[in-house]
Each structure stands twice: as C-alpha cells, then as structure tokens.
C-alpha cells in the first residue's frame, strides 16, 4: 500500500514539475509542492493505519451540541 502511494505521488510530481520548471512558474511550483506534500503526509498516515480525525463528525457534534438539536 505504501509503495502504491509513493508510486502515485511520484507520478503526479513527474507529470507536473518539469512543465512548471520549464516555464519558470515558481509561485505555481511552490503552491503545488506544498499541497502535494500535504497530500503525501496524509496519504502515508492513512496507509500505515493512523486514523485521522473524522472532520465532518466533529463539525456535526459541535453544531448539534451548540444548537441543542
């Protein structure tokens, strides 16, 4: 699973980065790199079995608690 994730992210980087470097779109490259890295970190966490907090459930609990639904 981890190998699949790494291959997938490697492919995404290979598709995007050369074009951005060639055009010298540094701002776009930084934006891409930050989002790509976030995606990689979260994907690795999911693939090694770390449970990420269920955001929607947390939002729902906060709203129902706040408004007493």
């Amino acid at each position, binding site marked *: 699973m981890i190998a699949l994730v790494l291959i997938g992210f490697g492919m995404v980087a290979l598709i995007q980065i050369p074009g951005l470097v060639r055009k010298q779109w540094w701002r776009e490259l930084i934006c891409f790199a930050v989002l790509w890295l976030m995606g990689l970190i979260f994907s690795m966490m*999911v693939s090694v079995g770390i449970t990420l907090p269920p955001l929607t459930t947390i939002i729902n609990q906060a709203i129902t608690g706040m408004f007493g*639904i």
Partner: protein
Amino acid sequence: MFLEKGRISNFQLSTLTIGYILGASVVIAPGEGAGHDAWIAIALGLIEGLLIVWIFTALARQFKGKTLVEINSLVYGKILGNFISVFFIWYLFHLGALVLNNYARFFKLELYPATPKTVGIILIMLVCASTVSRGIEVLARCSLILVTFTILTALIDTFLVIRHMDLLNLMPVLDVPLGTLLWTSHSTAIFPFGDTVAFLMILAFINKPEKGRSAICSGLLTAGLVLIIVAVRNAAVLGQMAVTYSYPSYISAQVIDVGDVLTRVEVLVAINMITMGFLKISVVFYGTVLGLAQVFNLRSYRPIILPIGILMVILALTNVSNTAEMFDFANQGYPIYTVPFQIGIPLITLIIAKLRQLPQTGGDQT
C-alpha cells in the same frame, strides 16, 4: 486576470445547475425527514432555495465577470477578502469530499460490495480532475448530454413503475408536525438547492451575465420538479418503507418488471447517480481550484488540480466514521453549518457593496 478563458451559454448554465442539484440528491433523497410528505418539503424548500439564489445572483449581477474571490477582494480589501474567500473555498472543498463520500458509500452498499471504497473514490476523482483541467466549457457540454439522459431515464423509470404505485400511500397529506416539515424544507433548501451558491465561481464565465439569474432559476425549478416527481414516485411505490431505505430511488426502480424481459432497471438509476455526481463534484472541484489559484495569484489553476484532488480523496475517506453519521450530518448539522456560506457571505458582501457603492465605474478596481 482571467484564469479561465472559456465561456458558457446560459442554457448550458441551466443544465449544469440541474445536474448539480440532482447530483447528490439522487443519492441522499431530499425531504426524507417529512416521510410521505417529502414532496411538500421539497416544494417549500424550492421557494427558500430561490431566495438564496436571488441573493447570490444579485451579487454576481453587481460585479459582472467576477468570481466570488475577486468580489471579496474588491469589497473587503485584499487581506480580509482573501481570508473570507478561503472560508468559502473550504466549504466547496468539504462539499466535494462529502459528495465523493456519498458516492463511495453507494458503490460499496449497492453496486460493488467487495471492492474497496477507495477505488470508487479515486476513479471518480480522476474523471473529475480530467474534466476540470479542460475547463468550464467541457464541463458545461458534458452537462448537456448527461442531464438530458438523466431526466429522460427518471421519467421512464417513473412511467414504468406506475402500475406499482399506490397514491393512497401519500395520504394523509401534511401528516408530519409543522416544525418537522419546516425543518425538513429548510434542509432541502440548503441541500441541494442552496448548494448552487458554488456557481458564484462560474457565473463570471457566462456569455450573457445579465441573464445568469434566470438561467439558474430555470435550472432550479426544473430540478425541483424532477425531485418532486421522484419523491412522489418513491412514496407511492414504497409506502411507509420509503424512509427506511438509504437510497429509495434505487430501491423503487428494482420493482420494475415488464413481462420478465425488462428487469434490473435500477442500474439506470445507478448510472444517473454516477453521472450527476460527477457533475456536482466537478463543479465544486472547479470552484475550489479556481478559487485557490485566484487567492494565491497563480497564472493557471491546472498545476494544483491533482494535489487538491488527492486531498479531497483523503478527506472523503476520513471525514465520517460510518453511513449513519453521514445521514445525521446531512439532516442535523449541515442545514446550519452551510448558512454562513450560502446566505451569510453573499448577503453581507452584497450589503457592504451597496453601502460602498461598489463597483465604482472608472475607479481603481484591482
């Protein structure tokens, strides 16, 4: 700076609106909380939905050719405007993940029980990413074909189940308490009708901006009519059991049996769910990447399509623990959670723009 060079016609905007509204509502049946009076809740929700559309299209008419991110920058200034825009982009991103999650659950429960949920999510996301990278025109053209097919099949399905319908299942009318009916109609107004606020990222690209409101309203009314027909059909076919099913449209199509030849028609409903879901996810995905590209002042939104898609997939996989929590959120939290995004941001921005007499003609509008 225009990140999108494509232009769509008002008719394409209408069909895109229909597809967008039918997108998730064919999976989570709107008005379900009102039982067999769901059709009344949808009709009432449609009226509130039209009010929401009136507010955000008034904003779009005030700032022709500008997306919400650009409008926010003009009205609130660069820093506060971008801050508010990021909130709105979060809403689009989260909505995309929720719809993806709904579809993955539908795949898992009804179509491919042995296939991991992740596979369905990644496949839909790849198709959406490919469409979004080709721009708004391609998305709008897809909607023309897919929406026509969906409406036709919904009507054919309804026609084929006529002999299984018992209209007495709709009686007594207005059986639910008034409070429940009003809450359900508000839920219906927010989801799916109010979700059309995402079109604030698209209205800038129509070729006749002054007719944008009528295009969205006609789409809203058509989709509302289809939803009412579907709600009546489901209640009439399934009776009291309709509320116990997660996907009543899919179940009601299962009873179709024309001379033992035409059976298993529910697969058409599944195709509708997939195609309309693709449209809805693509619209919010497009809004998310375009909005982020404008906030960060990028020259193109294409470089961030794949990373945003990956993050949306991760959120879709992790945002709820089980199906019951998803339905709880849709019925309880969502109608409140989205009010600031659907009504708050457009209404306050419109009021401030009117007070500040924006946009000023001839002034600096950067």
